[in-house]
């Protein structure tokens, strides 16, 4: 059943191929707003590049979270899933996996290009990609809690950032400072180790919390 769910969700994502690019496009547009809004000065941009790229990635993930359960809720399939004879937790994990594949992974792959555009110094590229690879699953996992809590609400769109962004802050701090460390030529394994530990923590907490949240949202 889990395999069937995985297959179905990937098929749906693939059907809406155009949508697949949206988080990516959003990411690119948002980061390219900064040279316009702040200053085109390459030196200044190089300094803020790491932070800007990471904030952009975070917002792009956030926006795409809406899709995680919403459609399934509206057409009744979420109800059907909760009634299946299997732990809801596992279903959540499949959903998170699909979300990460569709909305998280592509960000990590496109990020170097944006780094190039914003003039990120050379040492930053490697930690940028590695931190994105490590941290985007955390964003999907924590995000699933928010998505689960808000799925029944018609006005979920703006509520979710409020619930989830504070929890994203450690990720943001460690990821962006790992890039800074890379730029300054110092070691960034410590930061990445932290991200790994946080990933392990959320991998334990998030599916349970999301499963509970979904139950509550559907009982409403």
């Amino acid at each position, binding site marked *: *059943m889990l*395999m*069937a*769910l995985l*297959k*179905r969700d990937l*098929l*749906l994502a693939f*059907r*809406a191929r155009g949508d697949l690019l949206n988080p990516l496009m959003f990411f690119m547009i948002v980061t390219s707003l900064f040279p316009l809004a702040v200053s085109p000065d390459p030196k200044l941009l190089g300094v803020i590049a790491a932070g800007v790229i990471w904030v952009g990635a975070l917002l792009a993930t956030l926006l795409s979270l809406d899709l995680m359960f919403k*459609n399934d809720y*509206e*057409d*009744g*399939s979420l*109800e*059907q899933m*909760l*009634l*299946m*004879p299997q732990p809801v937790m596992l279903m959540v994990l499949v959903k998170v996996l699909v979300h990460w594949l569709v909305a998280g992974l592509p960000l990590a792959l496109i990020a170097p290009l944006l780094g190039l555009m914003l003039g990120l110094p050379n040492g930053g590229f490697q930690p940028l990609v590695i931190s994105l690879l490590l941290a985007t699953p955390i964003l999907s996992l924590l995000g699933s809690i928010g998505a689960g809590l808000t799925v029944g609400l018609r006005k979920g769109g703006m509520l979710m950032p409020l619930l989830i962004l504070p929890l994203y802050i450690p990720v943001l701090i460690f990821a962006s400072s790992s890039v800074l460390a890379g730029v300054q030529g110092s070691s960034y394994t410590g930061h990445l180790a932290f991200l790994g530990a946080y990933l392990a923590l959320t991998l334990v907490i998030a599916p349970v919390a999301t499963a509970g949240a979904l139950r509550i949202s*559907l*009982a409403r």
Partner: protein
Amino acid sequence: MSLDTFNKECDTPNQAIDGAWLSARGLFCERDERILFSNLNFDFFPGDIVRIAGPNGAGKSSLMRILLGLSAGFDGALFWHGQDMNKSLYDFRSQLLYLGHQVGVKGGLTPEENLAWFNPKASQTQIFTALKKVGLAGFEDLLTHGLSAGQQRRVALARLFLCDKPLWILDEPFTAIDKEGVAELEQVVINHAQNGGLVILTTHHELNVPVKTVMLGTQESEMPLC
């Protein structure tokens, strides 16, 4: 059986009758400070067709969601095969087919893909046969959201032909289905019961089927129109 049979003081207040599949003891549900039902007792047996009846707002859907374990706002005990529902939840769910107001059909998938996901084990021929039975032959490859209201529900109803779950819980399955469709669906329901299944349904249609009725909200909550 009528209302009284179900609602009267129960002989075995804290356990189910032997052989009953789904039983309730002392169910109580309140919404917005209006009591929808109280002290509801029933035992459903294999072969039963049970209709939950009552006017709009009587609490039919609420009762179904309580039976399913989707709603927490109630008091009382539920039993599945004589065991406490909370303990036999896995077994209950693996025997259940539920169709609610929203039927869980994905607009972005074709009817065929929709069925394949509900029944991963079904072969393509089985799926095609089921779709043909609900009159969707020729529509297998269109995306479901391009179909009409009734056709979309038919996709969900095709699950009735595919699966071997003994317990069916159907909340207004005839919505948006045309007249012949309704007549034929009734036949499907009868067949299922005769083969030893249990069907619990609500509908505002006239039914040409012998059913047990659980009547809700006949007293205070009746709501005549005009």
